[in-house]
């Protein structure tokens, strides 16, 4: 159990955290025909949109209620109504997911109440599902916003339903990429089970080209499928943050299994065990082979990961997934995370700082870390400390294919171990006499001047 450290300071330097509304928007984008709508002022929406565009390299249909000076004071109910009206006119979405921002939450508006009232009145909005999640920027990060959005969707759209044999609910956490979601879905299907994935960014934010242009998300979970989730035989939630959502489905009679992580041999073993029980099916040969290949990858990679001091900045669920995998390979972690969640406490290290990249930089330097694992904003820190930087989390704006990186399941774990080991290998330490306290050889012997000292 890691001790959570909350640094006592006023200044945050180089934020690690990403706002909760952005997390909600990302989750909403995993629904088919969706447009996320920020209830707040225009600026935060623009920042969030640019952030996602840079990460996904996709057009992101994110809208705003564009609160102005007047509505900020008098309340924004009308702004929402107007926004929905305009969005419907322009893009005709099947689904609008609203996320509140700090502004409206600070006012203490009863958005949910007003929205219910308004939707009753506006029967012409009936063919668009509208869902609202309270995601003030001041509480939690991307992981929490994502989870709140999923809970809101379940609250609004999942209903009691007759049992559907072989159907399972998969609730991927915000730390999973499109490729991760696809990998897990494939694993579930390999056991003959049929997953309903909520949200499913593996179909919407996976970088595909569509046949036409729509102003809303293309691909994602179908609304009709969400309605059947109450009939699934089990819910498989990935990440602690998804536990409340799984429990909402459990209230509809669906057994909830929460997997803190699907990265690392033991974690995937636990998942496979559950799939074996749920399906009663034989373990497919490909799964057996993937496990054997992971075992061999562990052997090859442990020379480089064993004893490696890793500085990791990540949201709790991602931190737990990647951190526990590295620790199981003998790495030593220095960790900064965003919120004091249960997952954060379970990251296998003595202390976890709830802080920012500034904290991580100080701790990494003091701890002599040799590799940085965090999102793209860590790049300057990596440069300053001369560390290889493996990018994980959100945002990753300086690499292509962030959504294609799979670190989940036996195969994803294998790729992750190679990725870390290769980062170490490609940053070779060339020893110098000075490293050992030895004096340099007398220049008298040198035929040519020695090259400049470099590490």
């Amino acid at each position, binding site marked *: 159990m890691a001790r959570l450290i909350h640094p006592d300071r006023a200044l945050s330097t180089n934020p690690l955290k990403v706002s909760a509304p952005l997390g909600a928007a990302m989750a909403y984008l995993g629904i088919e025909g969706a447009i996320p709508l920020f209830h707040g002022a225009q600026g935060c929406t623009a920042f969030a949109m640019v952030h996602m565009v840079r990460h996904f390299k996709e057009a992101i249909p994110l809208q705003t209620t564009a609160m102005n000076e007047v509505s900020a004071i008098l309340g924004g109910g009308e702004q929402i109504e107007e926004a929905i009206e305009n969005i419907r006119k322009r893009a005709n979405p099947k689904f609008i997911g609203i996320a509140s921002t700090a502004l409206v939450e600070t006012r203490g508006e009863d958005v949910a109440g007003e929205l219910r009232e308004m939707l009753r009145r506006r029967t012409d909005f009936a063919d668009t599902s509208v869902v609202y999640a309270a995601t003030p920027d001041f509480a939690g990060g991307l992981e929490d916003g994502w989870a709140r959005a999923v809970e809101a969707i379940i609250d609004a759209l999942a209903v009691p339903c007759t*049992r559907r044999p072989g159907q399972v609910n998969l609730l991927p956490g915000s730390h999973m990429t499109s490729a991760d979601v696809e990998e897990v879905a494939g694993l579930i299907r390999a056991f003959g089970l049929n997953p309903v994935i909520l949200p499913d960014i593996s179909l919407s934010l996976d970088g595909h080209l569509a046949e036409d242009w729509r102003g809303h998300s293309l691909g994602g979970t179908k609304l009709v499928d969400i309605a059947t989730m109450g009939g699934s*035989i*089990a819910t498989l939630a990935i990440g602690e943050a998804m*536990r409340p959502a*799984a*429990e909402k489905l*459990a*209230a509809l*009679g*669906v*057994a*909830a*299994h*929460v*997997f*803190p992580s699907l990265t690392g*041999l*033991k*974690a995937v*073993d*636990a*998942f*496979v*065990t*559950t799939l*074996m*029980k*749920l399906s009663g099916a034989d*373990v497919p040969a490909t799964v*057996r082979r993937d*496990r054997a290949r992971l*075992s061999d990858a*562990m*052997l090859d990679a*442990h020379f480089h990961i*064993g*004893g490696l001091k890793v500085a990791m900045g990540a949201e709790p669920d991602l931190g737990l997934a990647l951190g526990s995998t590295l*620790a*199981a*390979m*003998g790495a030593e972690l220095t960790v900064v995370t965003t919120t004091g969640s249960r997952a954060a406490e379970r990251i296998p290290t003595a202390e976890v700082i709830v802080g920012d990249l500034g904290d991580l930089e100080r701790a990494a330097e003091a701890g002599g870390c040799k590799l940085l694992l965090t999102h793209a904003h860590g790049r300057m820190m990596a440069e300053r400390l001369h560390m290889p930087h493996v990018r994980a989390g959100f945002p990753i704006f300086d690499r292509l294919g962030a959504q294609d990186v799979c670190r989940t399941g036996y195969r994803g774990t294998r790729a992750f171990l190679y990725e870390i080991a290769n980062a170490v290998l490609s940053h070779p330490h*060339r*020893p*110098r*006499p000075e*490293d*050992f*306290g*030895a*004096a*340099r*050889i*007398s220049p*008298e*012997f*040198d*035929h*040519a001047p*020695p*090259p400049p000292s470099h590490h």
Partner: protein
Amino acid sequence: MSEALKQKIQTAFVEPGCATNVAKSESERKKGCAKQLTPGAAAGGCAFDGAMIALQPITDVAHLVHAPLACWGNGWDNRGSASSGSELYRKGFTTDLSELDIVMGNGEKKLFRAIREVIAQESPAAVFVYSTCVTALIGDDIGAVCKAAAERFGRPVIPVNVPGYVGSKNLGNKLGVDALVEHVVGTMEPATVTPLDVNIIGDFNLSGELWQVKPLLDRLGIRILGSISGDARYAQVAMMHRARVTMLVCSHAFMAIARKLEERHGIPWFEGSFYGISDTSAALRTMCRLLVERGAPADLLDRCDALIAEEEARTRAELAPLRPKVEGRRVLLYTGGHKTWSVVSALQELGVEVVGTSMRKATDGDRERVTDIMGTDAHMYENMAPKEMYKMLREARADVLMSGGRSQFVALKARVPWIDVNQEKHEPYAGYVGMVELVRAIDRAVNNPMWADLRSPAPWEMSACDATDEPFVLSAVPGSKADFEDC
């Protein structure tokens, strides 16, 4: 094979400095010290390979291999001998003979051109030209080409006559060093000489191992003047004849040069090792004693003793906290020569059990030392077939294998930790600090949590009911109507 080369090989097999060699009968000696290779059951490098291992650590020369591509194309850039100066030695230069070159007899011309090009391109301190199987077979006279090129380009061009087929790596070591004695040693004079100048021969400075020891010499004021070791400069080889003492880092292959330095220039030599605590101390003591005998200030001995006392105490203090982590662990050593015993005593001091040590390439002296340290010779074994080793490791008769790269996968596939103690390794283990590093490496290897995970059965290998549900939490809400059943 040319008569001259035959002659040279014969003399290489006579090594008066080597006790094993001297004890042999004339006819035994003619056979050489390497055993005849068995077709179909031979693995290991050729003479060319051996010469390269010996000489490539000389950093500021161009090592030019006169051969079709295979010899060096497959061999270059694979050793971790570190340099603090020139990086030239890491470049792979070869004449890359084509079929046409060979049938047209263009080998010598191409070599000459290659020498010219490498000098123009790299301005090396010297060019070392290696002959190989094919170029020896077609009769290229690299000696003549080197001589002509040296005259023409005003730069030392040294022929190293080592076609792979003449023998093993070990013989190649000797032939390589022989070329230095013949063509390089004594060709340059140092600006100054001091009574504390030494030669160090045969340490490859892998991952900087020599630098783990050099601070000790620095503190005693001892200068490495001459060197055929990692991080050596050409000038250091050329100036060897002016040192006061030669330390030969446990290597029979290099003995010839140490002996010749003694014969020709009166420089006494000794064999020592920087592996393990007591060996490092012994090497330092011997070096200082010999220097004093040759006129160094007598207080050197006292300073040496003080340094050793201080370093040994510090090392033991650093090792103490590691003891609980490695105590009782069983190590299988599969290496050769002096390493068979040089680390054993230090490991035993830490409560590490050495279950066996291989006697490959070991001398009678090595054997005696093993028996001395272990109290019995029961732990010595010769070669071990991979199959046997796998079985032994699988049966968990050792917790960790320490060996060279070739047995790596025998250990890993048996799911047993492995530590590289041979030439490709990335961790330096020399001197006092190196011993601490080695024990840390053992700790890191055997205590890596990965092994437990790796050895645990797959979900489908467990019977349905003893599968543990950890670490996930099964939380079907009470009263739910789920038709899920936990077993």
